[in-house]
């Protein structure tokens, strides 16, 4: 089955848009812990950055890439979100976001209509 780039990005945007911003996931994140609690280096923060990249609020730049790639894919946030929140596969969403970025498919404001 052919899936278009737009469909992938649309699905991803819809999924990350489900994050309630409860931030319950932040404390279990090793990157968040290592940075003494910088929220843009947390699972919650990465989901927000991804959302705002996809909807065109943010441009792809060094800080957004740095924050997204600070994810170690340990999956601890997934367990928290399943237990306390929206049941999002947080680390998979971030992985997919990173993939789209690396392929040059997400380009912030240049993709405003995504």
């Amino acid at each position, binding site marked *: 089955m052919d899936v278009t780039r737009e469909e992938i990005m649309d699905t991803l945007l819809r999924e990350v848009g489900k994050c309630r911003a*409860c*931030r319950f996931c932040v404390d279990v994140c090793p990157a968040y812990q290592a940075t*003494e*609690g910088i929220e*843009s280096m947390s699972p*919650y923060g990465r989901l927000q950055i991804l959302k*705002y990249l996809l909807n065109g*609020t943010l441009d792809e730049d060094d*800080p*957004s890439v740095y924050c997204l790639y600070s994810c170690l894919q340990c999956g601890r946030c997934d367990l928290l979100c399943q237990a306390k929140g929206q049941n999002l596969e947080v680390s998979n969403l971030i992985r997919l976001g990173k993939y789209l970025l690396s392929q040059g498919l997400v380009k912030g404001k240049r993709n405003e209509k995504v």
Partner: protein
Amino acid sequence: MDVDIKKLAKDLSKIMGKEHVFTDKPTSVVYAKDTMPWDLEERNIPYAVVRPGNAQEISKLLQYANEKLIPVHTHGSGTSLVGLARPKTNCIVLDTARMKDIRVYPERGYFEAGPGIHLAQLRKELGKYNALLPVFPGSELVATLGGTIAVNTSAHGVDAALGKPGDFILGFELVLPTGEIITTGTESTRRPAGIDPTKFFIGSEGLLGVLTLLRMRLIPLPYFQHIVASYRTTEDILDTVMEMYKQRIFPPLFFEYLDEMAAKIGYEAVGLAEPEGAVAMMRIHSWSKAGCEERAGDFLKFLQGGSPTEARIVTDLHEWNKIWSSRAEAGNYMYRLGMTFGSEISPRVDKLREAFRDAKSFILNLDSYQGNEFISFGHIGAPTIHAYAFLRTKDIPNDVKKAVALEMREKSEDLNIKYGGCGGEWGLTAQRVSFLKKKYEKEVYEVLVKIKKALDPNDILNRGNLQGWM
């Protein structure tokens, strides 16, 4: 307002070191977003996020902000449910996350902690000293001590049984909006009588100063007993709470209820047999084992004098944990399947039944959305009704989300006014300013504005919250 971001970053870096100053947009949007179900606008996004490490750095920051007339918005963990955490105007966000040291002094009868410590971490630390943290919000994993005391919120029925967390505060170190560092209160376990400034800052919602150190009494960990009771209808539980107050029975530390739908969902989620109606669950406390057992026995007798279909003491902790977690699971079910829009209605206790009936009626007849369901649970012993509009979809346009949230806010506040309540958990500014103005004489709001102006003449701290900006 035109702000040179590069110059701002340079100036702020001189105050607290460049590693603690962020002017990149990704970090700014992450800190600006809060739990409100609608998106940010450009005016919500801060110029910079700073993470000071002590009162001296905050003092310099606030002096600088006053000189440049740039607002500063304090940030604990951003979990406010009435929009306190979202910046209302472009500003500098002051994140307290680095100030999280804890020092426990058993020989002095208190502990001191920074405002940025998360409650779950603090509870764990106090547990080593067999001490109770008298605060139990649903956001405990991430809610900060500073935010909790700034709103003076405790959740469950803790208010009725023990008091507000502010009642255990002995003193502060804090920075006034104009940058002066002051200390308040006492190092004794006996709180000052009279005009102790400590109390001006408890529950001041970050409008009057930035808390940099909190001193709080060590409370011995009590013994607990647990009770679960089933009822044919939610109304029977409301009657029980009304009767409890009427008979002047000391309220349990926790007295929660799940309405018929919430009980069914929650019990199923944790693998318990489906209840026939609504469920109430209580945690009784006392500082001796015998005293706790006696209180639980007395409370059970009181419940059995009402109309439960079953009421019993749960001694198996594993079973209690299942029963207790059914509350959270009822909420999680709704979060997973759709969207919820909540309310906090704390009526005069003899009006509980009427307030519940009115809440159900308006939620099932919203103007901003049709087809939602009604579900309720909450800290009924306090008494608080959390009545929710549950929408079985997440696919809702931003403007509809905002309209539903605001309609829920306005109509539940009308019930707080109609039935003599004020709410007990969410603070009174930001989205609740319209309630504040409606509920009390206009002079009450004017007094708050005067106090704010006296301490913060340039309206630097948390600008827009007292004005009720969205």
